[in-house]
C-alpha cells in the first residue's frame, strides 16, 4: 500500500477539474481504502501465506515445525483423503443441482407471479437466515428421524428403494446417510441460489416475454430461448454461491451424516483442532482452495457470462 500512496492517481475526480487540484484531495481514496484493505491483507491474505508455509513444514508439536519444503505432504494428504474430496465434490454438486431445481420455480414465482405477495415471500425466504442455522439443521434430525412421517412416506412411495439402490440411503434409514447430508446442504444454501436468481429474473423486461410470444414462441419456448438465457447471470452466481460453501461445509456431514459421509471439511477440522497435524491440515485446505478456484474459473469461462448483458 505504501508504494501506491506515493504514486499519482490516474485521473482526478470530475468535480476537481473546475478548481486547481489540491494535494490532500488526491490522497482521499487511499485514506478511505487503507484501514479496510489493511485488515484484509493482514487477516485474509497474510494467513494464506502462513498456511502455504505451514503446509510444507515438517516436525512435531513437541519439537516445533520447520519449513523443509516437504511437498510430499500434499501427495500423502491426497492419497489418504481422496474419498473425502470426492464426496465433497459429489455432495456439493448434487446439492447445487437440487438447489437450482428447487430454487428456480420459487425465484420465478417471486419475480413474475407473486404480485402483491412478492415482499412477503421474499421475507419468508430471507427470514430463516436470522435463526441460527445450527438449530435449523438440528431440526432436520427430527424431520428425517427413523419411522417419522417423512421417512414413512418416502418408504411407502418406494423412493427409499431407489435411493438405497443408488447408495444414497441405508434400508429404512435416511438419517446418517448421504441423502440426509445432501438434503441438509440443499436446505442450508437454498437462499443463496434463490436471491441471485430472483435478482436476474426481476430485471428481465416483461415486454421481452410478450415479444417472444408475438414471434411464435410458445410459453415453453419463451422460457427456453428468452427467460432462461437472460437469467444466466443469476444461475451462474447462484450455483457458485451454493457450490463453494457446500464443498467446504462440515456441519451437515457431522450433524446429519455418519463416519461414512465425512467430507473434506470434516477432515480439515479434525486434523487442525483434534489431531493437531498442522501441515496435513494446511495442505488439505490448500488443495480444497485450489480445486475450487480451478473449477470456478473453468465454469465461468464455460458459461460465458462475461458476454451477457
Amino acid at each position, binding site marked *: 500500500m505504501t508504494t501506491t500512496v506515493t504514486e499519482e492517481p490516474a485521473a482526478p475526480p470530475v468535480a476537481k477539474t473546475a478548481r486547481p487540484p489540491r494535494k490532500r484531495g488526491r490522497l482521499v481514496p487511499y485514506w478511505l481504502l487503507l484501514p479496510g484493505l489493511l485488515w484484509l491483507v493482514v487477516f485474509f491474505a497474510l494467513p494464506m501465506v502462513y498456511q502455504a508455509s505451514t503446509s510444507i513444514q515438517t516436525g512435531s508439536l513437541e519439537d516445533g515445525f520447520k519449513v523443509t519444503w516437504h511437498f510430499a505432504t500434499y501427495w500423502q494428504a491426497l492419497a489418504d483423503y481422496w474419498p473425502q474430496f470426492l464426496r465433497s465434490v459429489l455432495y456439493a454438486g448434487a446439492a447445487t443441482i437440487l438447489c437450482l431445481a428447487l430454487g428456480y420455480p420459487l425465484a420465478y414465482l417471486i419475480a413474475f407471479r407473486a404480485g402483491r405477495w412478492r415482499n412477503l415471500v421474499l421475507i419468508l425466504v430471507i427470514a430463516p437466515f436470522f435463526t441460527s442455522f445450527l438449530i435449523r439443521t438440528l431440526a432436520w434430525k427430527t424431520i428425517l428421524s427413523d419411522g417419522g412421517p417423512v421417512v414413512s412416506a418416502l418408504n411407502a412411495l418406494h423412493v427409499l428403494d431407489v435411493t438405497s439402490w443408488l447408495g444414497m440411503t441405508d434400508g429404512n434409514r435416511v438419517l446418517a446417510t448421504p441423502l440426509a447430508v445432501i438434503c441438509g446442504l440443499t436446505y442450508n444454501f437454498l437462499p443463496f441460489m434463490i436471491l441471485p436468481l430472483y435478482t436476474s429474473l426481476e430485471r428481465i423486461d416483461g415486454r421481452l416475454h410478450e*415479444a417472444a410470444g408475438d*414471434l*411464435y414462441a410458445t410459453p415453453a*419456448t419463451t422460457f427456453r430461448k428468452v427467460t432462461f*438465457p437472460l437469467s444466466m447471470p443469476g444461475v451462474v452466481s447462484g450455483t457458485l454461491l451454493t457450490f463453494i460453501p457446500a464443498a467446504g461445509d462440515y456441519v451437515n456431514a457431522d450433524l446429519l451424516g455418519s463416519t461414512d459421509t465425512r467430507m473434506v471439511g470434516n477432515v480439515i477440522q479434525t486434523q487442525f483442532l483434534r489431531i493437531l497435524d498442522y501441515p496435513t491440515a494446511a495442505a488439505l485446505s490448500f488443495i480444497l482452495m485450489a480445486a475450487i478456484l480451478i473449477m470456478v474459473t473453468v465454469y465461468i469461462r464455460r458459461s460465458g457470462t462475461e458476454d451477457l448483458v
Partner: protein
Amino acid sequence: MTTDHGGDVRLTGISKTYGSFTAVQPLDLTVPEGSFFALLGASGCGKTTTLRMIAGLEEPSSGTVMLGDQDVTALPPYKRPVNTVFQSYALFPHLDIFENVAFGLRRRGVKSVKKQVGEMLDLVQLGEQARKKPHQLSGGQQQRVAVARALINHPKVLLLDEPLGALDLKLRRQMQLELKRIQTEVGITFIHVTHDQEEAMTMADTVAVMNAGRVEQLGAPADLYENPASTFVANFLGTSNFIEAEVAGRSGDDLTLKAGGGKLVLPVSRCTASAATGEKVLVGIRPEKISLTHADDAGTIPDGRNRITGRVADSSFIGVSTQYVIESPLCDAFEVYAQNIERDSRLAPGAEVVLHWNPAHTFGLDAAQDIEAGAAKVEEDAAA
C-alpha cells in the same frame, strides 16, 4: 401463416374492462387489407389496449377479433399471424441482430433463415450490423431491427405501438418516411398507435381518433382535419377557433347564423349538428384559413366572406408564419396564422382588425359539447 389471401382486420363489439375501469368501450372497427391505419389519441385513451387485443397480448372482455375470415379471439399471441413492433422495441438483449430477426422464423421451424434474414436486414439497411448486440446500436437502428424482426414473418398485419416514441424529432421525421416506404414496398396492413397527430397524418391512409375508450372519428387525414365531427377531434388535430351561434335560417345549400350582432354563413353539408332554425351550433374555423385585414382597409374585403371584427392582443413571429391572438366580442382568444408573404406592419398589438374567411371553410358542430375537449393535448404529450 404466410398465406397470401389476407383480408381485413375486423373488430366486432370488442371491449376491455379492468375491474370497474373501462379501458375500451365496445368498439367496431374494420381495417382494410393493405392499408396504413393509425389509432390516434392521448395516453390512456385505449389505443394501446386495442392494439394489444389484436396482437393477443390482452384478452378482450367482450367481442371478437377477425383476421380475414378467421376468428382469432381465442388464439394466444404465438398462434396469430400478427406481429408487433413494441414500444421501446423489446429486442432480446442476449441475441445479436441476426438472431433477433431470425427468432420468429426459427420458432416456426424454418430451417434456412440466412437468406431471408439477410434480405430483411438489407431492406432496413442494417446488413453490416448483423452480428452486433442490440445495445451496440443507436435508437434509430434498434427501431429498424424491431421492424425487421416483425416483418420477416410476413404477418397479415403489422402492429406498431408508438414505434417512434423513443426517437428524437429529426430521426422521427426520417423514420416516418422510412416506415411509409417499407409499408408501400411490402404491402402489409400496418396498424400504428401514436399520440402524435402529425405522425398519424403524415403516415396513415386512415386515422381513427380515440378518446376515453371510444373512436371519435375515423377517416382520411385531410378529411378529419377539414371536417372534424367533434370539438375533441377539432382540437386534437391542430387548432380550432369556436364561436357559439344560432341558426337564423337556410338559403339553398347554406345556413345563415347569428353570432353576436353579426351574420355568418355555413354550408349545410359541413354541419354535423341538427340545424333547425333557432338552435345553437358551434361554428369552427381553422386559424390558417382566416385572413386579417386592418380595420382601415375593411372596404377592400370581397363580399360573400364571413367576417368578424376584433383587436390584436398578441402576435408572435415564427418564421414561415406569424401567429396572432385576436380579442373579439365573440371569442376572447381567436387564433390566426398568417403566412409571411406580405407583412402588414400595422398589425401590431392593439390594432383594430377584421377577420374574414371563405364560408366553405367553416364547419358546424353540436353546441352541447365542451369547447376545450382535446385541447390539453400539448401538456399531455410533454408528460408522455
